[in-house]
Structure formats: C-alpha cells, structure tokens
C-alpha cells in the first residue's frame, strides 16, 4: 500500500456521518488498487476534475452486459487502477440478506477485486467496484457457482427492483418480492443480452407511496392498488382522536379528493369510496385505523426516465388495474410487457427510451398497436386540439364529390 498523503480526503474522515474515505482506506489495507484509488481521488480533489475514462468493451462469456469498463486516464502513473471495472450482481428481492450470503459476497470480492462495493447501485444491483479485465470471467464463475447472477447494463432490461412489500409492510397490495423474483427470472435473456433501442427498467412498488420511485425512474412502473373501498376501523379512529391526533386537519383536509369525512360528534371517519384515488395519504397518517381494500392488484404505468436525452419523463397510466397473482404466474403482466417491448423494439430509435418513443409517435398509436384498451384513466385530461389523425378505414368513403369523382 502506498504511503502517500491525502490531506484533502482526510478532512472527510471528520464529522458524524460515516466516511467513504475511511472505507477506501480500510480496503486499501488489503488492496493496492484501493490504495491507488485514494491517490487518484486526492488528485481529483486537488484539481477539481475526474480521472476516469470509459473504454473498451469488457464482459463475460454468454452475456452482453453486467460489467462496466473503467480505466484511469494516466495508467502509467496508476498501474493498479489502469483497469478498474465494475461488476453488477443482481440483488435479492427487497435487499434482504442473511449474513452467510453477505460473507460469501465479501469473500469472493476479497479474492478477486478491490474490496470496495456499493450497497447498492441506484438501480438495485450489488456493485463490485474495481477489478482488472483478466479477473472478470473468474469473478463471474465464482459468483455463479455461489448462486449469484449478473445484473443488466447496456440496451437491455436493467436489473429489476422492488420495495420491501409483504415482507415487512402492511401497505403492500401485491407480492412485490415474488413478482420481482419471478418476472426477473422470466426475462433472463432480455436482462443479460442487450438487444433493444436503449435500456428498459421495471420497478415494483406495493402501493402508491412508490418507495422504489417507479413512476419517476422506470420505464414500466407497477404500483400496488385496490379496486374496492379502503377499510376503516372505527375503534382505532377513536383511539387516534383520543390521543388528540388532528384527524380533520392532518387527514381529511389534506385528502386530494375530499372523500374522507370525520364526524366530530360520533368520532367516526367515513369514506366516499368512489371518490378515493388511493393516494395513500390517509393510510400513511393513520396506519392503525385505515387499510387498503380487499380487491388488490396494480396499476401499470409506462415511460418514466431521468433527464438525458429528451428531459425527464414520468410514467403515465396504461392499465388502471391488473391482478398481480402469484397463482397465475403473473401471466397477464408478462404478456403485456412482451407486447410493449416488441412495439418499442420495432418503433424506437437508438437511445430512445420507450416514453420518448410514445411521445414521438403518439399514445393513441401505441395503445392501438399494443392492443391496450383506451380508458380515460390514461390521461389527466383529453386533448385540447382537434388534430385527430383519423383512421381513414373507419370513415364513410362511399360518397362522391360534386364533380363525380370518388371522394
């Protein structure tokens, strides 16, 4: 390990928040690459610039992604991080671990890499940060042997992700953990072998709190919901009231559709079920008293992504309600996403996320061609212009013009 000083980075070992510098130093005890990373980073802090290059394609046999090549810009100065690639390992649903599994991850990474990780990458993967090209295949072989698989990179289905779901949340309207696991296994080819115009993400959130940021961050957003009325436990309501919780102010007044009425005299809370948009606010405020309905499923939205290229998009509703049942193997959902991807694959331009393709070609065309029924839930409001591209085959072409020509 190098003995060079890192006075700027050392400043970041002070303070209460856990220090990534301390972590790099811990790794540097065993890894020369981690030690050299510290030097490169100190230099970035001095110069206020990065020192990494994207570079040649790296990967493992049989896969088209899962590894991100990374190279330092002065390999002669920093030979140990001349190659410093990232491996993405597909995390278990809900980021649940037993310590045996975690120790296996650590042991294998100590054997092959820098000893530095991200727990986790923003998309969800376990990120192994920094290894040489020659180690990539052995790393994969070892992890594979231990029961792990690679995550996605490139123009593929990226590693899917889900919220904690029924594992530890009373809000979950479908089994996000199983959906994520089952559906990821269904689309192994799409995940490991990039073949699309660009990347595509799926995130599974058990309710409209959307703890995975699915609507904001994924091309296909699966948000748990229910179709009947939310359920209210009046005894529990009275307990909240007895504890001076301001039900009127903090719950009813903040309800976006004013569908909740609190009767101060009877201390009862009632809901106009048909007006409820299942936004979760009241349940968040009074989890002991209010529950989701019984007829549960999910709303499917499409098109979310961050800023590059054509601005950030939010996903928008395509299927207001779909059953998400383990029993039928999520068939309806799988069938839907296959149609969606097929359409995008045929119509999308390179580096165009599906939300951008739909925006370019029209939501109507997308819905027609993927055979998704049109419903008013898909829009906040209808079009303001009259520029309907009429399906000419639907019109009455039997007439003739005054000059006798066929219209």
């Amino acid at each position, binding site marked *: 390990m190098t003995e060079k000083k890192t006075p700027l980075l050392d400043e970041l070992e002070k303070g209460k928040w856990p220090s990534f510098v301390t972590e790099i130093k811990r790794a540097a005890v065993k890894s020369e690459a981690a030690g050299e990373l510290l030097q490169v980073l100190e230099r970035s802090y001095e110069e206020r610039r990065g020192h990494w290059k994207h570079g040649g394609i790296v990967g493992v046999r049989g896969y088209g992604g899962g590894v991100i090549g990374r190279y330092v810009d002065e390999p002669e100065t920093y030979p140990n991080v001349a190659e410093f690639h990232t491996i993405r390992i597909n995390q278990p649903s809900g980021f649940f671990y037993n310590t045996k599994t975690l120790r296996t991850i650590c042991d294998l990474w100590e054997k092959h890499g820098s000893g530095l990780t991200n727990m986790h990458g923003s998309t969800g993967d376990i990120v192994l940060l920094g290894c040489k090209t020659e180690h990539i295949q052995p790393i994969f072989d070892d992890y594979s042997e231990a029961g792990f698989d690679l995550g996605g990179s490139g123009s593929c289905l990226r590693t899917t992700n889900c919220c904690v779901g029924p594992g530890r949340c009373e809000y979950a309207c479908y089994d996000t953990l199983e959906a994520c696991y089952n559906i990821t296994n269904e689309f192994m080819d799409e995940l490991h072998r990039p073949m699309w115009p660009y990347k595509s993400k799926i995130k599974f959130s058990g309710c*409209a709190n*959307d703890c995975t940021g699915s*609507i904001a961050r994924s091309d296909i957003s699966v*948000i748990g*919901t229910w*179709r009947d009325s939310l359920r209210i436990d009046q005894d529990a309501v009275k307990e909240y009231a007895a504890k001076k919780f301001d039900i009127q102010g903090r719950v009813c007044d903040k309800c*976006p*559709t004013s569908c909740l009425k609190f009767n101060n005299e009877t201390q009862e809370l009632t809901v106009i079920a*048909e*007006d*409820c*948009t*299942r*936004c979760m606010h009241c349940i968040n405020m009074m989890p002991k008293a209010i529950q989701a309905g019984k007829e549960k499923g999910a*709303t499917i*939205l499409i*098109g979310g992504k961050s800023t590059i290229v054509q601005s950030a*998009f*939010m*996903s*928008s*509703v395509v299927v*207001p*309600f779909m059953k998400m049942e383990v029993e039928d193997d999520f068939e309806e959902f799988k069938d839907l996403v296959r149609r969606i991807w097929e359409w995008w694959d045929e119509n999308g331009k390179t580096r165009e996320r599906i939300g951008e393709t739909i*925006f370019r*070609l*029209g*939501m*109507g*065309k997308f*819905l*027609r061609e993927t055979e998704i029924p*049109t*419903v*008013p*839930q*898909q*829009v*906040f*409001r*209808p*079009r*303001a*212009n*009259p*520029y*309907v*591209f*009429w399906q*000419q085959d639907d*019109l*009455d*072409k*039997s*007439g003739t*013009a005054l000059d006798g*020509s066929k*219209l």
Partner: protein
Amino acid sequence: MAKLDQGPPNYKEMLPPIIKENYGTWRYHEIPRSGVLKHVSESGAALYSVRVATPRLVSIDFIRDVCTLADDYCDGFLRWTTRNNIEFLVSDEAKVNPLIDTLTAKGLCVGGTGAAISNIIHTQGWVHCHTPATDASGVVKAVMDDLYEYFDSMKLPAKLKMGLACCLNMCGSTHCSDIGIVGVHRTPPRIDHEKIRKGTEIPTLVASCPTGAIRPDPKNKSVIVNEDKCMYCGNCYTMSPAMEIYDPKNDGIAILIGGKVSNARSAPSFSRMVIPFLPNNPPRWPEVTDAIRDILELWIANAQRGERLGEWIERIGWERFFSLSGLPFSDMLIDDYIFARETFRTSAGFKF
C-alpha cells in the same frame, strides 16, 4: 381623396352623458333581473344596461331598428359586447321596463347576464368561409333555440360561454370556451392536378402545410399529399382551389369543453375534446344540440354553486366526467400533437 391612417372613430364621441360624467368612478354593479346590469357610480348615478341577443350576422335594417330603440330609450347611445350582444344604455330607470316590454314585443331576446349562457361567439361557416367543415350561424341558432331557457334566466351553476369555429383552425375563442363547437374535416384534400398545373405556385402550396404533408411531384408538375401526416386543416385549399378539402360524408363537428379565459380562482384554461365527431345534420343539427344539452344538464345536476363547467370537471376528474356522462372515451381523445405529454396521467391516483 381618402385620409390614410386616421384610425378608429374616437370612442369619446360615442359615450352617453352619464358615462362621461361618471367615467372611471363606477362603484359597484348588480343584476336586478336577467338581462339587466345596474352600475352605480360614486356620485350615486345609476346606469342600466339592457342586454339583447343578436345573431351577429345582421342586416343594416336591423341596426337601424336598434337605433330607433336607442333613440327612444337611451338618448341615442348603445354598445355591443364581445359576445355579439347589444347593450342599451339606459340612464333613466323609468325607461328600463318600457324598453324591455318593447323589445319583447318585437321578439328581441333579453338575457345573457350572470349565471346564464351569453351568446355563442362564432365564425362564418358556409355563409362566407372558404374552408368550413360545418355551418356556423345555423348551428348557433339551433343550439340557442334549444337552450333558450338558460339565456333568459340565471339558473345555471355559473356562467357558460360557448364558441363555435367552423374548421380545425379554431378561430374565435373556441379553444378556451366552456363549450366549444368545432367543425372538423376528417379526410385529406383531393388534388385536382389539372388545376394545379394551370395556376398554382407549387412552392407556396408546399409551404402552406403545417405538418409538411405536401411535397412537390415534379414529374407530374403537381404535388403529392402524405396522407399519414395530413391533419385536415384545409390550409392548402387557401393556397389553391385545386386542393378541395370539404367532404360532405365525413365533415362534421367535435365538441370540446371546460375551457375559460378568466383568471378568477384559476388560470385561463383550454377546452378539451370530449366528443370527436358528430355528423352535420342541417338545418337543425339534432345530434349536436342533444349532446350539448346532455353535458349542460349533467353539469347543472352535479356542480357546486359558482362552479364553471371546467372547474366542476377538474374537481371530480375527467375520468369521472366520462363515467357520469356515458360518453365513450377513445384514443381519438388522447392528445398526440406537440404538447401531448402534459396530458398523460403521470400518477397512480385516479378514480375507477
């Protein structure tokens, strides 16, 4: 020799004495009855405006009749409103009821104030426009005959402003009306190559298309229309009579609702399409009058007091409007033009 650039007549010459005397010092107004506004000034003076419908398209003899009435009851002063109503400016309270009696006797329509339908701003239609997809005056007449009870009363939840445009260009103020009636073509222009070769300037014609659907066809000394790109606006017919766009079997009317121009309570808003097509069925357009009446009655039955049509729908949600109205929702109602994205529902919160 005519004077150039002398500008409009000076409005000051058009103002009755009561207005000159109380100019800028009006204090408040009230609506003593349907069709009458009473404005009171700081001096205590009161001006009564009696509002009367016109069909907008009027003969000079109509105007002369109106002048006679204005001379008799208003010392020769009156005004028009932006919605094509006449307002008789009565400064003598004693003359208000006699004027109304005379107007009524002559069959003129007093109303259009407060929580009422005012008058339908409209375009020329088959009377005088070159690209109409429907008539204007006739549809307005049919609709207002049907809804007359809401013109001469003030029993609506709030005011209701309507507009009619006879083609997709949406002239007038249909794009921000409570109810907009819009003539729509639905088929591409038919090219008369003979006529084009005779006298059309092809580059100008090509440039006239908003979506770039027209391109030159040099071999044929004419043009080609890419029908997938055409959205039937008829601009090309303006440039060349060889591009006929009318189509009796397929022209008709779309209904857009929920817009407004005022900033009160919320920002001005666009009307939204709820019915993509109704047939042209002159002289009375029964499909159109029925559709509008249905929407109106649904609003009357459900809105809170003071809630304009669009405010009501925004409160309950457009998805709820469609379920309440029973109007079919189709992909034709989903925007696919330039600013479509902001209409997509980027939220899991909606009503079933």
